[in-house]
């Protein structure tokens, strides 16, 4: 059961990722990315990380991607004009990608412990309260720093996006 669920969502996920690459229209890429994120959230649920799953939906799908879509709409970024890809990319990139992928798969599949360790379904590893507890005790400093970072980001965004009235 769980395998099938996983494979199902993983397929959606991978499909979305690939679609992101092949789509020419930015908006479609964005939508497929949303799909990827949604299915990832479900995979997180399979992994028992419910909190992260929901956060994934709220922040990634709900906020970041909305921002993307918003900008796409704002700039009306339609077709991406197709230029001939640089030769280097074709010569080095594609084979490199293949080799890398093969190596990766090979390693992951050959690595016995990875194969053996199974992850049960249903057990909740990431209840919100525990995550919050850690966030505010062990990782408090990082948390605060991040909040400062966000503040700076907000200000930076405002400054950058504001039309410069001389």
């Amino acid at each position, binding site marked *: 059961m769980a395998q099938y669920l996983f494979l199902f969502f993983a397929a959606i996920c991978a499909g979305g990722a690939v679609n992101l690459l092949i789509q020419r229209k930015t908006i479609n890429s964005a939508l497929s990315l949303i799909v990827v994120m949604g299915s990832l959230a479900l995979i997180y649920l399979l992994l028992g990380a419910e909190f992260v799953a929901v956060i994934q939906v709220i922040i990634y799908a*709900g906020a970041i991607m909305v921002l993307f879509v918003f900008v796409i709409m704002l700039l009306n970024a339609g077709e991406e004009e197709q230029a001939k890809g640089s030769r280097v990319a074709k010569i080095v990139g594609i084979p490199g990608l293949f080799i890398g992928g093969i190596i990766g798969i090979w390693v992951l599949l050959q690595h016995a412990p990875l194969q053996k360790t199974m992850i049960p379904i249903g057990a909740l590893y990431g209840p919100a309260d525990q995550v919050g507890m850690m966030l505010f005790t062990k990782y408090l400093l990082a948390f605060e720093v991040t909040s400062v970072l966000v503040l700076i980001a907000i200000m930076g965004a405002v400054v950058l996006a504001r039309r410069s009235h001389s």
Partner: protein
Amino acid sequence: MSALTFLIVAVIKIVVTLGVLLTVVAYTVWLERKVVGRMQNRWGPSRVGPFGLLQPLADGIKFLLKEDLTPPYVEKHIYLLAPGLALIMALTSIALVPIGPVIHLFGISTPVQITGVVDSAGHASDINIGILVILGLTSLGVYGIALAGWSSNSKYSLLGSLRASAQMISYEVSLGLSLVGVLIMSGTMSLNGIVHAQLGTFFQGTGFGFIPRWNIFQGQFVAFFLYMIAAFAETNRIPFDMPEAETELVAGYHTEYSAMKFAMFFMAEYANMVTVACIASVMFLGGWSGPPLPFLPAAVQAFLPLVWFSSKIFFFLFLYIWIRGTLPRFRYDQLMSFGWKFLFPLALANVIVTAFIVAIRA
């Protein structure tokens, strides 16, 4: 219970709830037209059936039968996708709302809540991050509108959806923050748990024993008003209906839509209203709980929760309509500055204060 019965029960619950929800949606439209009509010294719908009670039906038929035209130069797929997205997101949220306590029918006991189950001890339990899930769904609801506006390739729609997405993103923040207070007080994110946290009454034994321990009475009234305002903005209702400001942008994001697709947006909007009403009543007014009425017979007692719940929903819907009949529309910049400079700080303050109080109590 066996997986099969579980499945059956779930399906039944889904069907019933959805049916009820859609009916409520339909009749909310009727109610709105009626009430606003009265407020404006008109009769409102009165031709079709007694008091125009059949009006929604007629509307539905009309929508179905009208020509469903797709303008040229639209982004076809997205244009088709958008309304469905909007409606689905709107309807899904209801699945998490605890409508009533555990009921026992034909030897099967289950809470009146689609995502609710009964644990071994016979208590109702549900997703323990339900409220977050709802927030996630509402945040996804933006796409419907945004894509609709963009895909229909018309300046009015685009403007409408731009406004809509900006507005919804902005007010989502305050919305979420206004709920944090409640979450802190009840210490759980499961809607069911929140409702249970609000059972019982204050001043046991005194003359005021009837006052229920609703969060709104526990100092969350600020949060309550914040939530209501933000929710109005989320649902693009007056006075926040920029996205479909008919006086400026013909009909905003759904200008290019017609027939059933338009109906879907329409339903989505009202479904959202209902969802908001549900969440408001669950978070602040104790959901299906209410002041005890011991003098009633047991048979009636069994139905009290549903009565309470539905009456609260009705109250909120009426509030929606009432305000629509009362308030003018914001200007866009006013809307933004209000959201960011007033609601947001206030929500933050509320969170902080609540946290302090709870911390001190503990």
